[in-house]
């Protein structure tokens, strides 16, 4: 059920105050704690938040961005949000979600990490730790352990052949990606399972894989019926490489649909994660069209497909879309942007009381930039994660902290 008031209360709280009113929303969700679904979408490579959510009304924006600045009006104009903010024109579904109050746009956010290595930054974002390589488990996995469903098998699912760090840890997490196992006969599988009896890792993995595969094939069969005759959001085939574009869109749309297939089930996992790559736009990033636009369109289509495939379950779903850090405020010498700090993120879903931009906007004037180059972060991304855990999944926020001082509640 949608709880607009308590949702709004939570979001305002996490923006402006401490944790005091979070209790109200926890109560609001206590009615049906197991209904809540959560999807984490990690954009690896550092999404340019100043292009995805361009502050077109900031007086310094156009000057810093030069050739890749998005326009306020006219052809290829950014889609307006509140205040100085807008969305990249490729993010049509997100813009509709904003209008439908199912999207909260976050800006000038960052993890605690302040260097500029992708790999360490992703490590911090996924582990929930304060420094890179401090923990071998991920915050989502620790959260699963604290959920009632986490005690059972496969409370979470990673869409991909392997499990990313955010989902690694003591809780059992399935991974799934399409595999053609039709030819593999049950007798051979049974013998392999026997052979793995004394190998705890492999026997666990095999059992999980077979269970996930059964779930996914059911979901796929259902989706095939639903999607018959439909062409997923690919009408504007101009510019860029048509084939490549189809590739990006189709892959992420398929992943999103598969995630929905798992989450929709009454007895299925409640938490899912998938990641996307290709956001490291150092050169020829493009504006309303171009490299970044292509990828944003793919992401937008995937999120749209997730909503569509989840059907009524969307109402109890929260999706967090985040990246390891932002990019430089100014364009570089090759019409792209280099590694930065403050980033944009999205909180999307039927359980989000959205329709707003949450940003304590530092401004883009040179004096306000971090190290005279990056958007200054004014909010810790972990406050958003904690909010989702506590208010949506009913998990103690200590779960975000890394071991050894991890949650004990």
């Amino acid at each position: 059920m949608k709880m607009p008031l308590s949702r709004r209360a939570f979001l305002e709280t996490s923006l402006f105050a401490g944790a005091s009113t979070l209790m109200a929303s926890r109560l609001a969700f206590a009615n049906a704690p197991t209904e809540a679904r959560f999807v984490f979408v990690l954009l690896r490579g550092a999404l340019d938040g100043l292009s995805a959510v361009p502050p077109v009304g900031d007086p310094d924006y156009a000057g810093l961005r030069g050739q890749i600045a998005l326009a306020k009006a006219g052809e290829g104009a950014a889609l307006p949000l509140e205040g100085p903010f807008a969305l990249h024109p490729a993010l049509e579904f997100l813009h509709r979600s904003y209008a439908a109050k199912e999207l909260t746009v976050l800006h000038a956010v960052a993890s605690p990490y302040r260097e500029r290595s992708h790999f360490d930054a992703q490590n911090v974002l996924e582990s929930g730790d304060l420094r890179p390589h401090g923990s071998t488990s991920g915050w989502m996995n620790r959260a699963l352990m604290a959920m009632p469903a986490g005690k059972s098998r496969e409370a979470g699912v990673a869409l991909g052949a392997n499990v990313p760090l955010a989902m690694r840890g003591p809780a059992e997490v399935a991974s799934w990606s399409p595999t053609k196992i039709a030819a593999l006969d049950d007798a051979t599988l049974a013998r392999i399972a026997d052979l793995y009896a004394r190998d705890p890792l492999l026997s666990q993995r095999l059992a999980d894989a077979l269970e996930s595969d059964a779930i996914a094939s059911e979901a796929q069969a259902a989706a095939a019926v639903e999607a018959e005759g439909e062409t997923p959001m690919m009408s504007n085939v101009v510019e860029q490489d048509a084939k490549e574009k189809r590739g990006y869109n189709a892959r992420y749309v398929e992943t999103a649909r598969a995630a929905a297939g798992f989450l929709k089930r009454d007895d299925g996992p409640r938490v899912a994660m998938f990641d996307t790559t290709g956001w490291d736009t150092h050169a020829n990033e493009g504006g309303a069209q171009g490299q970044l636009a292509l990828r944003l369109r793919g992401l937008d289509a995937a999120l749209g497909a997730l909503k569509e495939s989840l059907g009524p379950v969307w109402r109890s779903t929260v999706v967090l879309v985040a990246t390891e850090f932002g990019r430089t405020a100014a364009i570089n010498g090759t019409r792209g942007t280099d590694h930065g700090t403050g980033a944009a993120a999205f909180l999307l879903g039927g359980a989000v009381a959205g329709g707003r931009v949450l940003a304590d906007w530092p401004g883009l004037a040179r004096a306000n930039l971090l190290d005279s180059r990056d958007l200054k972060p004014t909010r810790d991304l972990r406050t958003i994660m904690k909010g989702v855990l506590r208010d949506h999944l009913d998990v103690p926020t200590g779960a975000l902290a890394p071991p050894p001082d991890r949650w004990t509640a």
Partner: protein
Amino acid sequence: MTPTQTTAAAIATNRFGLGARPGELPVVGADAAGWLLRQLRGAPPVLKGEGLKPSAETLAKVIELRKDVKARRQAKDDQEKVAAALKLPAVYRPVYIDEIHARFAHSVTTERPFLERLTQFWTNHFAVSVDKVAVLGLAGAMEREAIRPRVTGHFQDLLLAVEKHPAMLLYLDNPASIGPNSKAAHFVGKRGNGRKVGINENLAREILELHTLGVDGGYSQSDVSTFAQAISGWSIGGQDNGGRLAKLGVDNGTPGEFLFREVFHEPGAKKLLGKSYGDDGVRQGETILRDLALRRETARHISTKLARHFIADDPPKAVVERMTHAWLDSKAHLPTVYEALVESPEAWEQPLAKFKTPSDYIYSSYRALGIPLREKRRALQPFEALGQRNLMPGSPAGWPDTSADWDGSSALLKRIAWADVVAQRLGDTRNARDLAPQLLGATLTDDTAKAIARAESGAQALTLLMASPEFMRR
């Protein structure tokens, strides 16, 4: 032969090699470390294969094509635009397939598998990923041209060859990185109609973070910026946007070859990591690289990666320590470092400590079963199916190298499914019961031997061999 010796042979072929071929364990014999080190002697083999050509030739062709692509992109007609977009992949893809096929064939047949594994380690250390179309036709050539010949030389020579290779320059956006006080910047400032040029710090950052010092190597953002200025002008010949440079009478070099564009270079002395480097053109960046190669942080960073790659996800500290010393004492003479690795007793303990990557799994399967390579286009399929596309790690960090990165449940199921398809195809043409001890030596368990012996068909026995816990690991 004592049991220890047979374990050592299994470790040598599987952990340090690309998986045993039938008959290989007896060749290794009692002196397993000696077998590995002998592979490092003599010039590394030159990769042979139909269609392999110098990267400069491929790139020169592409530079020509780009002009046409640009013209088509400006056309009104959508079809023209699509045709333009497909032009580069159309040239690059067959080159990529030729490269992968040659590399695959060599990996499956080589009698110096340790050398090949080292080669591929370095290729992954200096990763360029072919999801960036600009390097699709160049990544394989970079391995052949810059890496292969230098795997048994000094690290600084390897480092310089890689950082100057067009594939690396393009992958990390250096060719058009222009110093703010360079001649080109002054020219554009005067006549560029508001066009902006400047530094791109991508290559400089990744050299420090990934290729040399490592992320905790003690450098700062200011070192990254300074280094980026020092290597501004490291570019590629023949690329001349709209003929602007030609109009200035600037040397445009040989198409597709490394070119130091003096007019792009940020002039002046630079200070990096506390040391000053004079205004010395291309030698400024070269000297910095040579110094980076010999720093303790670099020695430790790469020794750790090598030890992790070969021995265990969490490599023994003593081994890393010995390798780091070997690196510094020998001035980065790589065979001395490899020797420190192979001569470490810890390297021969705990067999099967590493979970194979998909590539390891594919190469070892092909070697184990003598599977014939299929036609070129299909050579890519197993890597795609198992989730490790050739030369496509997706980021400059390269493929990850621990069990948790590869042992997902879906990944395991894909492996088993693929093994079964291969086994069905081979059917009774291979005898798994005879092969198992020849491939796994002392690491073959009774459970696996029994399961294979009791299989209901030759094909099923092969599936069980390839799916066995000891074949999944190395």
